[in-house]
């Protein structure tokens, strides 16, 4: 399980493949105020990034993966 809800926070962990996009979207819609924590995230499929960009949800932490940190963070934090 790489996308889950824990204590009101949507947590992304490890490798999030394309299938996780729908799960993430469902969680975001069901918990409109829940922030997203991607500290433990290694890899995000484009479809998951797309959901995060569209969601403009507040994001916690910094992902472990260098590409995500360097290139994707600016797009998430500055939607």
């Amino acid at each position: 399980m790489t996308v889950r809800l824990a204590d009101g926070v949507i947590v992304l962990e490890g490798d999030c493949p394309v299938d996780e996009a729908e799960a993430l979207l469902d969680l975001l819609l069901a918990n409109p105020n829940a922030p997203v924590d991607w500290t433990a995230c290694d890899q995000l499929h484009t479809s998951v990034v797309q959901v995060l960009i569209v969601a403009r949800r507040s994001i916690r932490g910094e992902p472990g993966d260098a590409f995500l940190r360097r290139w994707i963070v600016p797009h998430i934090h500055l939607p």
Partner: protein
Amino acid sequence: MNALLEQFLLESRDLIAEGTRGLIALERSPEDGELVVGVFRVFHTLKGSSGVFGIQPMTRMLHAAEDMLAAIRDGRTPIDPALIDTLLECLDQTARWLDELEVRDGLSDDADGMAAGLIRRLRGDDAAATAPPDAPEFDDPGIFSEAERSAAIEALRGQAEGTSIFRVVYQPDPRCFFNGDDPLKLIAGLPGLAALRISPQGDWPALETLDPFRCDMRIDALAIGEEAAIRHAFRLVADQVRIAEVPLRALSPQLSPGPKSDDIVGAVLAEQRLLLASTDTPPGEVAGRWGSAAAAAANALRYEGGNGHAAAVAAALAEAVERHDPSPLFRALDQAVQGRQSPGTAAASQSAPSPPASRSLRVEEQRVDRLFALVGEMIVAKNTLGWLAGRTAEAAGAGDIVRPLRDLHALVERLTRDMHDAVVRIRMVPVGQVFDRFPRLVRDLSLRLGKPVDLLVEGEGTSADKTVVEALFEPLLHLVRNSLDHGIEPPEMRRGAGKPERATVTLRAFHAGDRVVVEVSDDGGGIDIAAVGRKAVDSRVLGEDELGALSEAEAARLIFAPGLSTMDETSDLSGRGVGMAAVRMAIERIGGAVGVETVRHRGTTIRLELPLTLALLRIVTVSARGRRFGVPLDVVAETIRLSDDRIRRIRGRAAFTWREQVVPLHPLGRILELPEARDPLSGSGGDRLVLVVDAGGGGGFFGLEVDGIGDRLEVALRPMDGLLGNIPAYLGTTLQGDGQVLLILNPKELPP
């Protein structure tokens, strides 16, 4: 503000006006190559200057617009109203940015976004379709931030030969997720990624409507490396990717390593040289291109104080045009470049003969206004001198001083009047300044209303005082809107009436004696005078019998009466019928008059007659209930004394007979609702002092009863502004000899 920026603002505003005119003309005659070249030159010069000042968003946007115009010029892109709209908006945006620069020396934070939005609109959705298959889009480095671009250039240094910066545009197939594609993973595997932008292909959907399995992204990237390696990374999605090398210059001329101002100027110069050298200039446009290159280069040189070089470039341009040969310009540019590198030669060329500088002088408006105010104060002082001379004459035993004092007063009077005239002349500006704003306005309105309209402008060079010209805009705006909204019939109705579908609105200005006349004419339906009359009776502006007595022309003038609207429905364009009255009041406030001529089904002409200058106003001072006012002498037909037995009561109102007509009598104190003063002079039982005033506009005469009549003076009128500007009873104020402010009445607006 630095002087160069000031110059830039002035010039740019002129260019924007020129560009706007050109674009509107171009929309009507898209085949006119000269118009395209003219507009191209405007955008190019604006872009060049904005580059000098490092106004990046403006430079990027204008650059994109310039590309578009180049495409139009070369016949690659057709002209359509939407494109003209966007180009006009670019000019609007530039104008707004100039205003921002003037106020706070910088652009607002959203400037980058605004520029990017306009650039996207310029390129249009079909940009991809019209571009050749693998066509690069590296001419929009603007989508990357300055930092990203300089980082890319920085990163390129020290790389092996054969590496370049590549622009990558990756538009993944929306169904690519189903094929197992992961576009960002491809990007992550790209060697030398230097910048990344993720944007929606259209707009991002709302989260609720997002289809997580549909890829809606567009990915823009800069990558540094060898072309083969970069292409290899995308080999599986080659049909969705466009890759092209970015010339460093295109990444941004301003971003050559080390952002010193020298290099900016150098880059601008280099770019102008490139522009001159380009061989794709169609014949006939050559001179225009030289002109814009020279202007941009001269501005850049002046920026760093190289006035000598700038002058040399200007001189070289003249020579080049004369000889049909750009080589003098090349030489001048090269010399400028060399001169910049070795200060010694720069000094030498500083002393080079510059072209004769006898053109007009651009002076800030405030300085002239200050001069104008000073002359106004001198006139006050002069009036005081006159008063002093008068008192001296009354004093006994001063005979030998009175004559020289009077002579001196006469001399000072003549000098101040001449000086006032001279200053007033400085303030003369062409009405074109105001007319210029209308082609755009008429174009937009005509599109909105679905009524095709041509605007003819005549006599835009006719000049009048700045205050008069500036005061014209709002009344004209109202009249032009009225013409389009109410005057001009819908096209089908015009067709039915045998008129051309395209209506014509004419703005015309000309001098008539010491007045300037401005007319707004349309060939629309004309005013329904009978309807105006009915309306006037309904709204109790006048009685049925009075209406019957009016001639057609007099009845047409009723449109200027307060509270009348001829249209049953008001529209968002023309307001609620206070309009024409407001126009009349605005014009009368600056000493003008309005008139109307209308022929049913043929059209309407509204005529505004204005003073050429705010010349000295001749007034007479009067007093009422202990206060003093000025009354313009030109409306006073006669000053009379009335004994009580000549005053009659008609329907409860006071009136008297003057030159065989019955004239109503209004005491000034009561009209103005002044508090009663225990003035021993008033109501002393003697004759009453009455000014017979011509109310103008067919309103006849009325008597204005005052308590006292004082001096006749020449004064410089200061129009009321702010809140006071809306009080119709006063024309303005003037300073008196004793330093007090005197209110000048507008007698035409006085009767209750």
